[in-house]
């Protein structure tokens, strides 16, 4: 764009035309960005800001007055048994689901990363639950978990295990949701692990082979340390996803009408119920703000991990 032509008048003239061209390009650029930016602002940025703002008001959606209550919503929230239950359930769910999903994903990723035969077919099958919509999956799992006719209890009976009332009491229901969620998220973690494993330079593994390291020792002393950043990253991403759990809980364990005996209260479900069943908009926003803080904290950890890796 810069002009190296000698002769001042020509250069000046060209500079003027360049700037006019540049100006018309700016107009084009901003014009192209107008609609996308408007959408991002209206449907994301403003609602995000409003969540924070709404959390300091008390509002039932109908009344005209929307009193400012300061941090009252948060104070009530901390003492709210439902919220405490939701937070502890979600945390327990996240801890168990992430631990199991990460370990199992790593176990299947190790052989698949070495490009063995039928690797594509295995990956396809393991990834399928992740990509399929959650509602039909949860519906099928509900049928699998059925205490009387469910196939899971039948299979367990073959091993001599007495029938479990999977969705009939809170504790087993939480386990049922965890098992289903591990099944669903494992394939996603597997793909990340395969990418991570293949990024390990071949010299390292060759050096290990020359040293005669094999099997578990090879994995412990070589693969795992090199893979640690990926393990951390997968753990954080899965934890964010696990705190976001809603659909399978809603289908299998949330609605008193729809689930046989029990409710597993999780964070998003509690927000959903406060906002759209009881119309406590300010209160639900305070709860969403807490969720917001959790996600943000986990994301900061994720960025740290990403930075330490590069």
């Amino acid at each position: 764009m810069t002009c190296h032509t000698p002769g001042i008048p020509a250069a000046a003239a060209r500079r003027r035309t360049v700037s006019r061209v540049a100006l018309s390009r700016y107009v084009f650029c901003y014009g192209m960005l107008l609609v996308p930016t408007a959408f991002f602002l209206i449907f994301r940025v403003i609602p995000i800001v409003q969540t924070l703002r709404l959390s300091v008001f008390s509002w039932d959606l109908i009344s005209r007055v929307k009193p400012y209550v300061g941090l009252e919503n948060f104070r009530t929230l901390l003492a709210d048994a439902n919220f405490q239950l939701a937070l502890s359930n979600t945390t327990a769910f996240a801890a168990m689901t992430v631990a199991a999903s990460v370990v199992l994903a790593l176990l299947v990723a190790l052989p698949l990363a070495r490009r063995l035969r039928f690797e594509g077919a295995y990956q396809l099958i393991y990834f399928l639950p992740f990509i399929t919509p959650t509602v039909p999956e949860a519906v099928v799992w509900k049928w699998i978990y059925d205490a009387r006719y469910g196939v899971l209890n039948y299979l367990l009976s073959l091993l001599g295990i007495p029938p479990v009332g999977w969705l009939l009491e809170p504790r087993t229901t939480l386990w049922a949701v965890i098992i289903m969620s591990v099944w669903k998220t494992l394939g996603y973690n597997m793909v990340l692990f395969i990418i991570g494993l293949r990024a390990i330079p071949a010299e390292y593994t060759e050096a290990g082979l020359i040293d005669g390291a094999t099997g578990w020792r090879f994995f412990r002393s070589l693969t795992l340390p090199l893979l640690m950043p990926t393990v951390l990253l997968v753990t954080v991403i899965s934890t964010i996803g696990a705190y976001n759990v809603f659909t399978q809980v809603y289908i299998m364990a949330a609605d008193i009408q729809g689930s046989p005996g029990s409710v597993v209260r999780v964070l998003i479900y509690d927000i959903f119920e406060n906002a759209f069943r009881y119309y406590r908009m300010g209160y639900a926003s305070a709860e969403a703000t807490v969720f917001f803080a959790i996600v943000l904290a986990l994301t900061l950890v994720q960025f740290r991990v990403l930075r330490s890796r590069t």
Partner: protein
Amino acid sequence: MGARLQLGVTHALLIAWAVVMVFPFLWMLGTSFKPAPEILAFPPHLVPRAPTVLNYVRAFQTAPFARFFLNSLIVTAMSTGVIVATSTAAGYVFGKFRFPGDTAIFMLFLATAILPLETYMVPLYLTMRDWHWINTYPGMVAPYLVMSFGVFIMRQYFRTALPDELLDAARIDGASEWRIFVRIAVPAAVSAMAAVAIFAAIQAWTAFIWPLIIASSQDMYTMEVGLAFFQQRYTIDYGAITAGATVSAIPIIAVFLFFRRHITEGIAFSGFR
């Protein structure tokens, strides 16, 4: 010999695990084609002995599943179309031009992807209510009109795969920027746009909590929401429920089987949003 044995064991374990992973899908399919007595048969069996489509007929008769399917198609088409358009326009500008504020706007687009919809669905719902967009198609797609990952894909594509010389040649010929975008950039980017379209379509079809909130009458339910209410209402009719589940899952599974290479890596990279 040892290595071969080890390989055999590895495959055996992977196959066993694959059976576990795929079993719920087979069980869904199997149940959906079983006549009622077989569904409750003991001991249970996977493959229907007298296969029937009556479960599908009953599902479509007791609930407007055809309507749910149509709604899902409409919502998916609207969201996909707009996301491809906004991602292509924004991605082109970010990939090919420098202008004041470009980095800031791009970072804003990406940063919003950190927070899931669930954090801000309450105020967004209130906006929809003010606009009278509750129980309408525009309301259902409102959060799915832009996709950070889509903008990112298109920006990468234009930056790396579309040569500047091509655009400059057109400029010398006197073509306007808009004309260059429509005539040169867009036709060159069809494959990248298709990738964005696949992600957008999967996201829209599988969306649950938002359509659950926004759709307030049965005729506006998507497949996911309709199926959720259906299984609450007819708790014990597992024949019809699994039939509905199969119909809801098949389109996404089909898309996945068709485009799986793009999908696995793209999604692993972005985690949607």
